[in-house]
């Protein structure tokens, strides 16, 4: 997030898109709902499902799946044509405006309606509200990123925010909600193929020299490695021989699970380190038991870049160890000593090599976390990014044309399927499915379908149905719901017994390598 979680309550217009906020980030949704009900903020929700947060909105815009660039360009077309953009911000802080203007010119509300299905007048009205905001806040989530055009979608939202001058201001910004407790921290710490901690590029000679000096090694690899979505195909065709997986369950979370499973079978050696014997761990040659959050010390970095303490409350079961201890001992056996005595010593090393974390000590975050960048021990942290300038200096508009999703409906697969999550479950369910209470509330997977689609396909609420895509078939119960819109069905991906990712398309965003979980074509039939 460029801004803080608290900022949603300081905005007078909030645009939520691709986020089922009340179910996936309930505590942030409360802030949005308070802003609307108690502080008079106006809310625009753009989402293919009539999700609960949409019931709080002034405008709910319903785009066809995979048409985000089109509606965002459409809003910008209205804002530029009507002169509603922030000229001062565009002139002083950005570049590339003319190219943007040219590309979005054809995205009139009427043209966009043809692509997205959003009524032209509604789109124009929403554009005027966002542009007219004193402080406009954009909140988005995986409904924006899990597309083959995910990077384009995010850049388009950045265009919109810059165009209206809603970046670098308290209350505004561009705010992705991160789905997992420490996905921000995993990225910050260099859990990515192209960067060391603090996003220092592995291709940078200077960064490599610094790490080599700190780590006491030579010849660090200077080319970016493979992403997870490249590793599995590489395993499939024999280029990747060994995989060491810590706390991940790609056999449930990857698109096109059957392919992922074959890929893992082709490995010579698979190590999995986890709390439970997950679907992925069952395929491993060696499984190593690790501690959960309640059993260890350390830090997580939340979605607003706030680094917060994790503290040990209970002993781990049996012989489970800290993940860092396990890795350090493997390293030791491979001839490289990692003699850390505790998590704080690791943080001290992180601070030495990571400029954005340099000022963050355990003592400083004892009571309340700090937002990175925090370059020195006196620095107060940075709740709001890009206040004076962008990372690259001027903010660059990316002129982007809309591209259709990788898979479209046809006679054989006439319905769109989109996937997501439910309030009572979490990711692949390895933790939430251990709770009787949560299972009582959300015991099994379901197909969310509109009343009309259900009738067309001869299905009643509660019927068992077979859902088939080009990649597989799953069986589950139908739930007729007013959240669903005609032509599009929804399945949560948590459940192994009816795994939505048997159906999803593994087509990737070419830059981010994110699969298109949010769009594929399916057919449905009553289960035999």
């Amino acid at each position: 997030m460029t801004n803080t979680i608290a900022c949603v309550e300081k905005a007078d217009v909030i645009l939520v898109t691709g986020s089922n906020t009340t179910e996936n980030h309930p505590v942030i949704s409360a802030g949005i709902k308070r802003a609307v009900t108690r502080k008079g903020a106006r809310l625009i929700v753009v989402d293919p499902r009539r999700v609960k947060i949409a019931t709080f909105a002034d405008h709910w815009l319903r785009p066809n799946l995979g048409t985000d660039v089109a509606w965002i360009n459409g809003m910008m077309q209205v804002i530029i044509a009507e002169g509603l953009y922030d000229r001062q911000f565009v002139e002083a802080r950005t570049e590339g405006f003319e190219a943007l203007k040219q590309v979005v010119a054809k995205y009139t509300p009427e043209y966009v309606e043809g692509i997205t299905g959003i009524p032209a007048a509604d789109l124009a009205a929403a554009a005027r509200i966002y542009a007219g905001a004193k402080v406009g806040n954009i909140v988005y989530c995986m409904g924006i990123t899990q597309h083959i055009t995910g990077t384009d979608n995010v850049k388009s939202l950045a265009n919109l925010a810059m165009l209206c001058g809603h970046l670098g201001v308290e209350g505004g910004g561009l705010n992705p909600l991160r789905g997992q407790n420490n996905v921000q921290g995993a990225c910050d710490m260099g859990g990515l193929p192209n960067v060391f901690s603090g996003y220092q590029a592995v291709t940078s000679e200077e960064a490599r020299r610094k790490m080599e000096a700190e780590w006491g090694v030579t010849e660090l690899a200077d080319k970016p490695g493979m992403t997870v979505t490249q590793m599995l195909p590489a395993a499939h065709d024999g280029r990747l021989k060994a995989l060491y997986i810590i706390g991940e369950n790609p056999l449930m979370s990857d698109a096109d699970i059957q392919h992922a499973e074959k890929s893992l079978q082709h490995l010579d050696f698979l190590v999995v380190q986890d709390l439970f014997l997950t679907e992925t761990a069952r395929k491993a040659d060696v499984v190593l038991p690790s501690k959960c959050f309640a059993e260890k010390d350390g830090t997580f970095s939340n979605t607003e870049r706030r680094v917060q303490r994790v503290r040990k409350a209970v002993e781990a079961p049996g012989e489970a160890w800290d993940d860092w201890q396990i890795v350090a001992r493997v390293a030791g056996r491979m001839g490289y000593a990692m003699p850390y005595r505790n998590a704080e010593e690791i943080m001290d090393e992180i601070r030495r090599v990571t400029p954005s974390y340099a000022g963050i000590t355990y003592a400083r975050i004892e009571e309340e976390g700090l937002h990175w960048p925090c370059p020195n021990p006196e620095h107060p942290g940075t709740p709001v990014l890009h206040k004076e300038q962008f990372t690259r200096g001027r903010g660059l508009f990316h002129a982007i044309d809309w591209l259709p999703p990788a898979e479209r409906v046809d006679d054989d697969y006439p319905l769109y399927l989109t996937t997501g999550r439910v309030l009572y479950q979490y990711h692949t369910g390895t933790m939430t499915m251990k709770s009787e209470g949560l299972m009582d509330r959300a015991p099994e997977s379901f197909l969310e379908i509109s009343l009309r689609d259900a009738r067309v396909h001869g299905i009643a609420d509660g019927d068992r149905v077979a859902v088939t895509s080009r990649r597989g078939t799953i069986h589950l119960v139908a739930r007729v719901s007013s959240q669903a819109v005609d032509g599009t069905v929804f399945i949560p991906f948590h459940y192994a017994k009816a795994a939505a990712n048997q159906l999803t398309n593994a087509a990737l965003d070419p830059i981010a390598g994110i699969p298109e979980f949010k769009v594929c074509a399916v057919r449905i039939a009553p289960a035999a």
Partner: protein
Amino acid sequence: MGDHDMLVMNGNEFTIEPGETILDLARRQGIEIPTLCHLKGATPTGACRICVVEVEGARTLLPSCTTPAAKNMVVRTESPKVVEARRTILKLMLASGNHNCAARGSDEGDWTSFQLEVEKGDRSEELCPVWGDCRLQDLAYRYQVTGEGLPRTAIPYPLEDVNPFIVRDFSRCILCGRCVQACNEIQVNKAISFGFRGAGTKVVAAGDNPLRDSDCVFCGECVQVCPVAALVEKDVRYRVRPWETTTTRTTCTYCGVGCQLRLHVKDGRVVKVSGVEGVAPNYGSLCVKGRFGFDFIHSPERLTTPLIKEDGAFREASWEEALDLVARRLESIKAAHGSDAIGLLTSARITNEENYVAQKFARAVLKTNNVDHCARL
């Protein structure tokens, strides 16, 4: 100082901050005024009237939570009149429900029959489930009040426990309305409200249905703000007493909001979770997963020992053996196929320190940049 409005409280002069109530000013100055219904972040209602104070020139005692601090006011927060009023309010509350903490006292010395009756509704022979963790009990002791001498009012509504998380005990509800405000103004789930009228007033969900058949999403905000035993976590009620637990503050392990929470630990097990009030990012709020989804910590399915697969089946192994095997196999694959034949998936679930060590291991030891995690999935 001359520019600021001042008032006098308990004989001392204080500066008034713009927009603050008498209660705000008192709290800012460390002067304790008791409250029951007041909920930070919500609209003050003045419902319970425990926070009344005496203001010179006013005809009645004024609720400090709704009365703006005004220039030249002379306020007394613990005058005899104030104390008397609080004692009366507390007496009425204690008489109006199953407050079997012994602070209630008993009519004609017949505590036993009262307790026996409460036990029937409670399905427990113990004293009140929040004994020692109750604002009403605290105040009853502070002002030395019992419910004696007043007739017990009937308990018109039975206990509700037909959901996995929350027990609603209307026999101990003092109708302060904090839960209603927490639900409507803080979490904005709009699941509960005041229903019926007069002596029959009840906090209802969706036209007086059980919570499970309402818009309730079991965030538990209402439980956290309940000052008495009307709302208690199902797994805590009569199983966990506050003096049996220690708490550790930490960060939630579910989504990326990073809610600050307290793990309540009894006999080495996490038995309850509560939100940390007054600090970002959640200011005490949690969701159903963060508050109630902690069973996995002590699940019997947790891995407790390294496992090695032999002939398609796992067998238990020592750390020595497992680590030796992992290191040997990685070494040999690296030697035979090169560093880039190995990949490492680190995790969005583990700590920063662990992620740092994992990527350092891949880069410095395995000598590959094949490092990623499931941010993309």
